[in-house]
């Protein structure tokens, strides 16, 4: 790693002030992506601002119509939360499937969504559960948060403080994971809110997206069979040594069907 100056502010205001003072500071969440990046010398921030000592951005609470989760809440806490398990079990399942046990013990919700890895799991839930991302200066609709590969709507120096997820009637997440990294080669989150259905796809494209044809079909007939013959186009999907764009397109339908079946 290149050298940096490490900060551990105790309040959000101190963190924001530190971010404002430095030209090239980075926020440190659980560090499960950032630290490996720094170890490979792929980034050279002047300062690391660790948000781990700020109590306001930790924890899970039930609220009208859903759940609010602090940005510095670790994946393991979401996976094991009685509240999440009861109100939105699909979200607990998703968190339980991130990385491995040790990664889940460190990695945070805020870190995951701010990094906006195209293969990360949480983006599928943020869009699928019609979430609102709260920052230290505004609220951003989950639909508008992810703007591209590793890109978000955040402004320089803006800090995510919490994510408010809406409680669906039914939801499930189905993931075809890379067995080594456990990232999603394709992950599909299906959520039903009354007559509305959301089908969100991660891993397949540069950023999470909605499979709108599938949403329309499922809104009329919420069964896996309703997705027969419906596929997303392979154009613009990711292709790498793990899966071609065509294979990813195929997997989207397969995972969507599995998620619908898992909704019960």
């Amino acid at each position, binding site marked *: 790693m290149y050298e940096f100056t490490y900060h551990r502010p105790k309040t959000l205001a101190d963190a924001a002030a530190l971010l404002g003072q430095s030209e090239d500071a980075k926020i440190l969440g659980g560090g499960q992506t950032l*630290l490996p990046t720094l170890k490979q010398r792929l980034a050279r921030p002047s300062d690391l601002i660790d948000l781990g000592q700020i109590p306001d951005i930790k924890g899970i609470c039930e609220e009208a119509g859903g759940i609010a989760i602090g940005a510095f809440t670790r994946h393991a806490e979401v996976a094991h939360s009685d509240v999440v398990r009861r109100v939105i079990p699909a979200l607990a399942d998703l968190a339980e499937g991130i990385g491995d*046990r*040790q990664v889940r*013990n460190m990695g945070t919700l805020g870190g995951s969504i701010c990094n906006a890895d195209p293969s990360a799991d949480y983006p599928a839930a943020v869009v699928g559960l019609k979430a609102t991302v709260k920052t230290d200066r505004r609220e951003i609709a989950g639909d508008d948060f992810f703007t591209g590969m590793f890109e978000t709507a955040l402004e320089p120096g803006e800090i995510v403080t919490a994510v408010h997820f809406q409680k669906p009637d039914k939801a499930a997440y189905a993931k075809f994971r890379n067995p080594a990294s456990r990232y999603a080669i394709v992950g599909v989150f299906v959520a039903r809110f009354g007559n509305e259905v959301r089908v969100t796809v991660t891993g397949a494209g540069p950023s999470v997206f909605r499979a709108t044809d599938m949403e329309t079909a499922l809104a009329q007939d919420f069964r896996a069979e309703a997705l027969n013959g419906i596929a997303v186009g392979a154009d613009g999907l990711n292709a790498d040594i793990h899966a071609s764009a065509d294979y990813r397109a195929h997997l989207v339908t397969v995972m969507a069907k599995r998620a619908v079946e898992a909704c019960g």
Partner: protein
Amino acid sequence: MPCTVSMTVNGKAVSREVEERTLLVTFLREHLGLTGTHVGCDTSQCGACVVHVDGRSVKACTMLAAQADGAQITTIEGLAASDGTLHPMQAAFREHHGLQCGFCTPGMVMSAIDLVKDNASPTEQEIREGLEGNICRCTGYHNIVKAVKAGAEAMHGSGAKVAAE
């Protein structure tokens, strides 16, 4: 720039001046001489470096020493009782020969103990899933799984608590 980090490691308070970019695993091995925690891949995949930070298993190669400032750390050296009696999970690894070359063993044992904290009697499948973050390059998983099952029973049966936590 150097900074001072202080934490409790295996029940003892320690404090050292380190570079801010020092990893926890480097701090344990090179500053404290606790070389039982291994560095395998150094890319957060293999789990040879797993230690407990405030009771949770983490990969010490993917955490800064500074992040652990004020924390309670347990390493493989902190498991056995002061008279040398092995922790039940260590004893189970020996009894069931849950190792071949032994390089991954410290991380396997630390992960296994964390796993058993959440699930007192894991099934074989749950053990295999729970140890996803640990790689045995000898592929000696069969006996590792047997050892974890026996270790879980011993920990559960005796109600033994993890030393120094």
